[in-house]
């Protein structure tokens, strides 16, 4: 099962138990595969057409009426087109709007530069009190859906729609706001977030192992609130922190980690991410390579940085 199937199934499961759960689309229902929800709960599913700002306004109204609305569109439109509506009518108003921004970063692939959000985390991170989640596989997404529905306030969920992959075995405890150590290590800590970069982090750790560098890998499925205890713990256990994200370096996950550590436990933070560039069209494989997101490109940079510290 892929991400969108898990998303839809989880929503249906939640909606069966709680009639406040409802769903909104902006002419991307087909793309998000949420039709089963419409079939099951026709009165609680609203397609707003190609009008994202209006959709977020309507979602806020639903929330003000006591509902728990999940709205979805591509991440580029979720974060950019409807930002003010999400910010004011949702967040500032203290309401409970859950927003899915799909196809983050390079996963927008053939839709190209206009559709490729490298800045959504930067925008969303600046919203006070917002919960931001970027799960790396369907299992962890499924585990997070209920806590997200019942978390206090607005949520931004960042994930690709179509892809399938398995990082977790399927019996782990996944807690909102708590990072998950995927691999132990003693020299450096790789903190990664999201579907694209968690696997790259695991691969990079393997490559580093071959160079005699022991790297721990942690999945930060929750970006805000950041699991600062875990970050500080590993900043103490290892020489440096590496962050990996499918997003601009500035203002993203690595920025959040560096900001926190700089005033609590200053250790070197090496960030892998997109270097002040716009998106473009291409296959995901081409884009990962072009923006320098692969393990093969990252591992030597991490290694050199680590050696320089010693």
């Amino acid at each position: 099962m892929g991400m969108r199937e898990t998303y839809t199934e989880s929503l249906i499961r939640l909606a069966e138990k709680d009639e406040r759960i409802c769903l909104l689309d902006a002419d991307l229902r087909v793309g998000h595969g949420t039709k089963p929800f419409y079939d099951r709960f026709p009165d609680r599913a609203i397609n707003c057409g190609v009008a994202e700002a209006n959709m977020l306004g309507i979602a806020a109204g639903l929330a003000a009426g006591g509902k728990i609305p999940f709205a979805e569109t591509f991440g580029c439109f979720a974060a950019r087109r409807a930002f003010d509506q999400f910010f004011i009518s949702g967040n500032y108003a203290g309401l409970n709007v859950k927003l899915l921004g799909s196809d983050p970063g390079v996963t927008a692939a053939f839709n190209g530069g206009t559709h490729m959000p490298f800045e959504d985390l930067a925008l969303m991170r600046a919203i006070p009190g917002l919960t931001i989640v970027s799960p790396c596989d369907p299992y962890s997404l499924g585990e997070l859906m209920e806590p997200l529905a019942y978390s206090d306030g607005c949520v931004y969920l960042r994930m690709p729609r179509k892809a399938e992959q398995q990082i977790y075995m399927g019996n782990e405890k996944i807690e909102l706001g708590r990072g998950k150590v995927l691999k132990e290590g003693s020299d450096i800590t790789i903190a990664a977030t999201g579907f694209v970069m968690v696997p790259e982090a695991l691969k990079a750790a393997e490559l580093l192992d071959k160079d005699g560098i022991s790297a721990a890998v942690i999945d930060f499925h929750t970006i805000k609130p950041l699991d600062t205890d875990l970050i500080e713990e590993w900043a103490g256990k290892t020489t440096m922190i590496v962050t990996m994200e499918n997003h601009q370096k500035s203002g993203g996950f690595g920025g959040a980690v560096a900001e926190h550590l700089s005033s609590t436990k200053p250790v070197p933070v090496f960030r892998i991410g997109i270097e002040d560039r716009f998106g473009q069209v291409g296959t995901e494989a081409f884009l990962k390579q072009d923006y320098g997101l692969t393990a093969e490109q990252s591992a030597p940079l991490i290694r050199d940085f680590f050696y320089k510290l010693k």
Partner: protein
Amino acid sequence: MNTEKLDFLTEKAKEIRISTIEMIGNLGVGHIGGALSIVELLTALYNGIMDIDPEDPKKANRDKLVLSKGHAGPALYATLADRGFFDKSWLSTLNAGGTMLPSHCDMNRTPGIDMTTGSLGQGLSAAAGLCLSNRMSGIDKRVFAVIGDGESNEGQIWEAAMAASQFCLDKLTAFTDYNKMQIDGMTADVMDLGDIEGKWASFGWDVQRIDGHDIEAIFNTVEKADVETDKPSMIILDTVKGKGCFFAEGNLSNHNMAFNSTQAAEAIALLRKENKYGNA
């Protein structure tokens, strides 16, 4: 329009349709539906209506087009290649890493593209800005814009509609590709545009409505739109999404469709068999 010219343009539209199908078929997936519904429009605009120069695509004194429904880029690329803006061999690079022809229109990549689009709802405002720029510079040229019917759900379309009328942008001629479909279904079911002619008229636009696949009607209405009024013009094109591609036409899933080059070849063979009246 004399029959010779009409035959020539009809044949050209067919070739552009074929290139569009071929291009997307090579890649394996693309926005075939909304590309094919505007082939006759683009053929007419770039072969007789617009004052443009493929040798000098950026000349200041030219007509411009904003393809606001930027996902229809492939149809425009086929049209521009046919008109000599760039080599036809480029068409096989659609969406490849580093390509000059991305799925959505990009003015910094493709010769002949006048505005970057892809985030629906933004292009009509940009077209209004181009008109105002021309007015400030004393350039007496037309600006054309193509918006989708689904795209017309966006509030910004109606902000631009109000502004263009307020600023008396009589050099602006916009087309609505009224193919009655968006991604999630028929526009009537998702977000009904209702009295679309009345809406534009009430926003202060001159409104005409024609069969969007009728090349002669496109020429006539575009000419009429240029007669001196101080209003912008909207031409509603009744079109068929996926027009002329047997597996796409009439198929509700034709928005962003996967098909391979064998299927493309089949569709192309059928098109080649058709006579000028569209009968096989």
